[in-house]
């Protein structure tokens, strides 16, 4: 193949693309360590003369960033747990039990995957308002305990189907209840699928903006994306340059996702590929 004949030529576009992807990050990292006097200068400094490490601490003092981070952890954590729990139970039901209308109901699950949630946004808001859930985390958490996220149900069911039925049956012979079979046979074998669901659920909830924007009004309840937006508005309003702090804050919010990717790369690829190729 051509790659084998001139491999070095191919490094050119790869390096170029790599620079395009990573360049903006480097600029952001550089900016986040700048001194305020190094922000509004032309030509811009690509890297600070002296690293201002305290910028990254400053962020936590200038805005209730610690509070936002804690809120994000609570909301994301609760949503991810709910998503894993309900996804597992529902997928188990679809994968291992025969009941009337099962195939029809599973088609319904699949068809909700293409339903844009903007269509449901307004009535959902009105329902949660009726329930008195506005300005609380419930609208951001509770649906995940009720099987929100059809794609994850699909993914988990597909995975359960690959586990041989014989395992269930021999356990049933020993008198195990179906919940026991799920817990001690199916789940231990499903760790890769569980990890995939956990990772993608985490990323989606951590990044979630429109939901919190609609449901949370009190600043103390903001999650990190809303907090960042709040910080941006505050920063824009003042006269002194705040871009270095905004950049430090943006990077801070990005770190969990990036870390997760670096440590669990193979689950990312698996999850994306499962969604893409078999979907």
């Amino acid at each position, binding site marked *: *193949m051509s790659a084998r004949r001139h*491999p070095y030529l*191919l490094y050119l*576009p*790869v390096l170029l*693309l790599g620079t395009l*992807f990573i360049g903006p*990050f480097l*600029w*952001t990292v550089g*900016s986040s360590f700048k001194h305020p006097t190094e*922000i509004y200068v*032309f030509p*811009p400094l690509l890297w600070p003369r002296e690293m201002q490490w305290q910028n990254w601490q400053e962020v936590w003092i200038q805005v209730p960033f610690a509070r936002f981070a804690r809120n994000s952890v609570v909301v994301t954590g609760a949503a991810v747990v709910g998503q894993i729990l*309900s996804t597992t139970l529902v997928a188990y*039901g679809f994968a291992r039990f*025969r*009941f*009337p209308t099962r195939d029809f*109901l599973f088609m319904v699950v699949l068809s909700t995957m*293409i*339903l844009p949630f*903007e*269509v*449901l946004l*307004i*009535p*959902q*808001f*009105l*329902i949660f*308002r009726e329930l008195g859930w506005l300005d609380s985390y419930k609208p951001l958490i509770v*649906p995940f305990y*009720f*099987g*929100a996220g059809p794609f994850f*149900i699909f993914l988990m069911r597909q995975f359960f189907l690959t586990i041989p039925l014989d395992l269930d049956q021999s356990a*049933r012979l020993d*008198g195990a209840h179906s919940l026991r079979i799920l817990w001690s046979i199916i789940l231990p074998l499903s760790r890769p699928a569980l990890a995939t669901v956990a990772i993608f659920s985490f990323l989606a909830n*951590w*990044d979630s*903006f429109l939901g919190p924007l*609609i449901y949370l009004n009190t600043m103390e309840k903001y999650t990190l*994306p*809303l907090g*960042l*937006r709040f910080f*941006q508005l505050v920063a824009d309003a003042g006269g002194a340059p705040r*871009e270095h702090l905004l*950049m430090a804050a*943006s990077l801070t*919010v990005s770190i969990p*996702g990036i870390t997760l*990717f670096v440590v669990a*790369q193979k689950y990312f690829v698996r999850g*994306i590929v499962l*969604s*893409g*190729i078999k*979907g």
Partner: protein
Amino acid sequence: MQGEIASDIKGGSKLRKPASLKRQEAVAGFIYISPWLLGFLAFTAFPFLASFYLSFTDYTVVSQPRFAGFANYVEALSGDDLFWGSLRRTFTYAVVGVPLGILGSLTCALLLNQGLKGTTLFRVLFFLPSLTPLVALALLWQWIFQPDFGVLNFLLAKVGIDGPGWLSSIEWALPSLIIMALWGTVGGGQMVIFLAGLQGVPQELYEAVEIDGGGPWFKFRHVTLPMISPTMFFNLILGVIGALRVFTVAYVSTEGGPAYATWFYILHLYTQAFKYFNMGYASALAWLFFIILIAFTYLQVRASRHWVFYAGEQG
């Protein structure tokens, strides 16, 4: 009971289960799927129908919904100045951004599929932008695009180009958002899906072309491209839906401006619903959006018959 189950299993799965056991199994199945079933009814099915009903009413939250016939739809299609504009901008964003994104992702995937040394590292580098939370991405690019002190115009100045105002310019705000979206998506899921597609192309096909003396372009055009066309189709469908739903980045970096230059459809819907509380009208906007998405997806599925090749199918 236990004995029955045991004998049933020993007898092999071909044997019919007794009716009571079948019922037991069905009940258990329903119990397991019940979280989804309840959630579906409460948070999907009911809102779906309610949204349809509300779209025919005048409802501003403070009073009861008043039936208004097709007034909301008429208003959207013929009275609302921002409706067609926002639709046009959203389509421009998708029609320009999605093909560029697919081209970029495919290029990245092809390069990573050459077995170069350091591929793993490059894959990580390419993937990183897609992990940036959208609000962070918007803030990061706002600073890059900063007309006077940003790095982009500085680099452009170095090669003799007087950079535009980017996000603050009426002409350049929409292209700026497309650039941001490309940076955030090209090396992400789309690329990984292409990679998997490329790895699924049977090696024998390439070898066959080599025996016939075909070059790299011939291989790409007549083997790779047809073989990965289903992957491309999938990316296209998801890409278009994603692009038409653009909201967060525009909300954070331009708030739809300047002079409505980036006022996208969902931004319009959001503003009508949650700023002006025109819930009836916004529901009509939501339903029109739903119809547009379905129509667009349907058209793409129709068109795909002419260019998507499924290896398992005959002729």
